[in-house]
């Protein structure tokens, strides 16, 4: 167990959740659609800053002639998000939801909400900017590890989805563009990995309490800022599962500790810089058995780095991987000295490389198998990363990997340019309006759990699972309208959760289908839940339809038992005579009495039970 306090761990969260209210500045739905009826071709031009400066990266892209193709589906997009019409008034339901969230988090709601334009020119916003507004300040989140301040709660627009990149053209689907996003940022005061998870859970629950959150994969995204004393701020972007937050923090701490010790090692070795002398090594590999090498090979010595590329920085990830991640902007991978000989590269080749590069035992080297120009850029990137190692931890944006490790995405971006969105009139939040929101605040999930447990006499754990599934309304109906035993409701929800992972299942839970199941729940045996539910979701019919389609009984278990008992009563003599052996001759009459309304397997199981009961 690490002593996180001693390490000076500081964690901050930024949580984004999509609202299910339709788009923020027009009246289109915000569902995702993979078909499209229209494609719009646009170029985005870098704009000047106040000082007449143009972002060099943006200018470079424009000069290269980067184009954007925006795909839209009629009925899901209008002129607003094609940037052909000014924004409509902000979606009132989205604004209302933000006010609710702000009050649930004890934040100070501003008197007048101003939308801003945040310049984004990667093409993910058709207009070239994202609209965003600060709705509330100074909220609080609670956790067992202490209270965390929430400096800002914002309402913003989600971006378009990148479909593919075709040469110089980026293809986007604008179905997601303009979906309202809640953005909650905490201060970076969290000091334990579990605190980060608890706070994320708390914030997630406060947002869910509004019942206006979209459900499904990718609808909530967490950015986690992590640093330790002497380290640097690293942002892990787009963590989608709560459980992963804790792992990411732990692994990032591990990485920063490892990088700091690596720096200390370099200092101890007296390494003061990294020269980027690129040497053509192609001739050394003219007869190589390495299948990856198909021509040029270029290399570079990392003086004083001997043994360091192989050093582990996270479980299964080495410093060499960190070097490779920077090179990946240009090449698929690199070779470093600590992993060779391997991949068909022989010891003799390694020796020849060392000799040519003048790399002694205390030095490392890196190879890139590519054309000269590309190899040069890749090796320069490696040298750049190696130089950063002399300082310790670079400021980076990293993407989470499934095991909690993280991978370099890009350097941490600078502050984005923001200026007023003059097309949207500020929203006034009068004291009266705020009081009205406060008077009808939704209950927090913990309160819902308590209410469900008390009202319906179910275990707290059961109630928690129902709330986790966001199925509180469904559960209440199952009790009030359909009198379904709570454990059966739970079974139904579990079954759905399992089925939802099958291909072809809807992205969002079809509550009306689950309700139809509840309507006929008495006719479905527990064993048949999966089959019946799958059939209902696929065909949209009734429970009876599903049962007959599946060839399963549409009679209840009680009815079957009653029928069996009738047959047993009528055949008391046979039972008396043959005992357990009576099963076979009785099966026929029972089947006949149920006239095929039930499958033989169920009947035979129940007949066996009933017969045993009589014999005992």
């Amino acid at each position, binding site marked *: 167990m690490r002593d996180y306090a001693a390490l000076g761990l500081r964690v901050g969260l930024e949580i984004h959740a999509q609202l299910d209210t339709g788009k923020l500045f027009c009246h289109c739905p915000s569902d995702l659609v993979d078909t499209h009826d229209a494609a719009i071709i646009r170029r985005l031009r870098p704009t000047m800053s106040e000082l007449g400066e143009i972002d060099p990266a943006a200018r470079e892209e424009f000069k290269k002639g980067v184009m954007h193709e925006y795909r839209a589906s009629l009925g899901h997009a209008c002129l607003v998000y094609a*940037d052909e019409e000014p924004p409509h008034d902000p979606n009132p339901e989205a604004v209302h939801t933000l006010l609710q969230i702000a009050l649930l988090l004890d934040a100070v709601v501003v008197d007048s909400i101003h939308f801003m334009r945040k310049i984004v020119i990667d093409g993910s916003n058709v207009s070239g900017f994202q609209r965003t507004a600060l709705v509330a300040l100074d909220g609080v989140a609670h956790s067992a590890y202490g209270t965390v301040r929430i400096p800002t709660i914002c309402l913003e627009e989600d971006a378009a989805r990148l479909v593919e990149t075709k040469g110089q053209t980026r293809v986007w689907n604008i179905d997601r563009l303009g979906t309202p996003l809640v953005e909650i940022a905490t201060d970076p005061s969290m000091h334990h990995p579990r605190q980060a998870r608890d706070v994320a859970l708390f914030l997630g629950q406060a947002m869910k309490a509004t019942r206006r959150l979209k459900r499904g994969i990718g609808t909530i995204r967490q950015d986690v800022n992590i640093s330790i004393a002497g380290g640097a701020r690293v942002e892990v972007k787009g963590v989608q599962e709560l459980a992963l937050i804790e792992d990411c923090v732990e692994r990032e701490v591990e990485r920063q500790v490892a990088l700091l010790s690596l720096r200390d090692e370099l200092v101890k070795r007296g390494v003061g810089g990294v020269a980027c002398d690129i040497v053509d090594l192609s001739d050394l590999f003219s007869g190589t058995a390495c299948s990856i090498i198909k021509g040029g090979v270029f290399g570079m010595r990392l003086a004083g780095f001997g043994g360091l590329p192989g050093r582990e920085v996270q479980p299964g990830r080495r410093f060499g991987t960190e070097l490779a991640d920077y090179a990946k902007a240009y090449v698929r991978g690199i070779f470093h000295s600590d992993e060779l000989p391997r991949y068909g590269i022989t010891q003799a080749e390694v020796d020849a490389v060392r000799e040519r590069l003048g790399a002694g035992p205390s030095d490392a080297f890196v190879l890139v198998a590519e054309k000269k120009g590309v190899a040069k850029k890749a090796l320069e990137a490696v040298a750049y990363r190696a130089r950063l190692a002399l300082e310790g931890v670079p400021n980076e944006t990293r993407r989470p990997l499934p095991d909690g490790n993280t991978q370099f995405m890009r350097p941490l971006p600078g502050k984005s340019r923001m200026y007023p969105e003059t097309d949207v009139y*500020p929203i006034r939040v009068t004291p009266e309006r705020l009081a009205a929101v406060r008077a009808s605040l939704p209950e927090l999930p913990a309160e819902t759990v308590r209410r469900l447990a008390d009202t319906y006499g179910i275990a707290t754990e059961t109630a928690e699972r129902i709330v986790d599934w966001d199925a509180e309304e469904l559960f209440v109906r199952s009790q009030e309208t359909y009198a379904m035993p709570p454990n059966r409701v739970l079974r139904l929800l579990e079954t759905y959760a399992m089925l939802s992972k099958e291909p072809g299942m809807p992205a969002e839970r079809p509550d009306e289908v689950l309700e139809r199941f509840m309507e006929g729940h008495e006719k479905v045996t527990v064993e048949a839940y999966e089959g019946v539910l799958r059939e209902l979701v696929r065909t949209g019919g009734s429970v009876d339809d599903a049962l007959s389609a599946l060839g399963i009984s549409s009679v209840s278990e009680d009815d079957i038992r009653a029928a069996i008992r009738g047959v047993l009563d009528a055949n008391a003599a046979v039972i008396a005579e043959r005992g357990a052996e009576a099963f076979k001759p009785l099966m026929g009459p029972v089947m006949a009495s149920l006239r095929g309304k039930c499958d033989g397997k169920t009947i035979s199981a129940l007949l066996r039970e009933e017969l045993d009961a009589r014999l005992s």
Partner: protein
Amino acid sequence: MNVGDRIRVRTKEHAYEGILMPSEGTANEAYLALKLDNGYNIGFLRASVSVELLEEGHMANATMPPCEIAPTLGLPDIAILGTGGTVASKIDYLTGAVYPSFSPDELLRLVPELGEIANISGRELYSIVSEDILQRDWENIAQAIVGRIAEGASGVVITHGTDTLHFTASMLSFMLRDLDRPVVCVGAQRSSDRPSSDAAFNLVSSVRFAATDCAEVVVCMHAGIDDDVCHVHRGTRVRKFHTSRRDAFVSVNSLPLARVYGAGRVEQVSPYRTSSGKDVYADTSCEERVSLVKTYPGAADIVGALVDRGYRGIIIEGSGLGHAPDTLHAEIRRGLEEGVFFGMASQCVHGRVNMNVYRGGRVLKEAGVLPLGDMLAETAWCKLSWVLGHVQDREEVARAMLLPVAGEVEDTSRLDVYGCREACL
């Protein structure tokens, strides 16, 4: 306290520092807007906070380092004249306010490609919202164009707000006599501070067209909502058809003159006039008491009031083939008796008026209302104002109105022209 000052705003429980912003919207002294250090603006109800000045602001107009421009031999000299609108503008990122920017270096900084197409000289004539443009502004613009041509510009580009861009193009078409090179009117439907603005592409395309041998006043704007083709429309034949789309401008009863492609190619679509070898001059005398009246069912009093106020000419934008409701006939007759000139265009926009088909049309025509063929109502209004500036006799005015001066009226209605954009081509 002034906009730009650094202030501290105290609420009951908190204090926030930032920069005082201009009052939001129009009249809302009740709220103050603050730009926080994180870049966000937020608003406070003045009555519920106390404000303290921390530091006086310096709303320094950020000066940009100069941008070296030397004329390139062999490139055409194109003059750009600014009259307002957001084609060439820069934004005050603090307030969101948009300002025109017309010095050649600002233009080149905004749209560096211009330097590869032409030697640009820029000048701001006005900075007005285009709905506020007046007769005398057109006179000034016409004079300025003649001046720039005299100085050697091989083409002139007028940047303009889009609301009345077609009025200006039409009026200049009449005022600039013996025009011997292109005058291109251009606007933007999305202001140039946003990366997705149509301004730069429209401007680049305009400068390209300004270097052709066309000798007409034209409008150059996006052909569709893609950033790939601009259409060049004859100044008297174009109209704004959409409040917000970037392809809002469409030629009416005629084809566009040309297309300008993103890669730079200029493709002529229909014939245009070229120089007659004479020198251009501005003939700007106009009658300001000319009105444009749209009829509607039961319309009354809208003509009589103008007649009473001494208007000299009225274009009626009538229904269908050129009709006005009975309720207006007496007023029109009275106007005609008092010597007011009446011309008839159609609110159908597309097509030609014909006042022979129905009795209502015949009655008005016999009374003296002049059917204006396939002329756009807006163009008819410009032309009548200009014609009345030169002749007053009814017969002479009528003859001048129907005599084509700048392609504004034709005898033939093309089979292939109706509706919008490519559909008709």
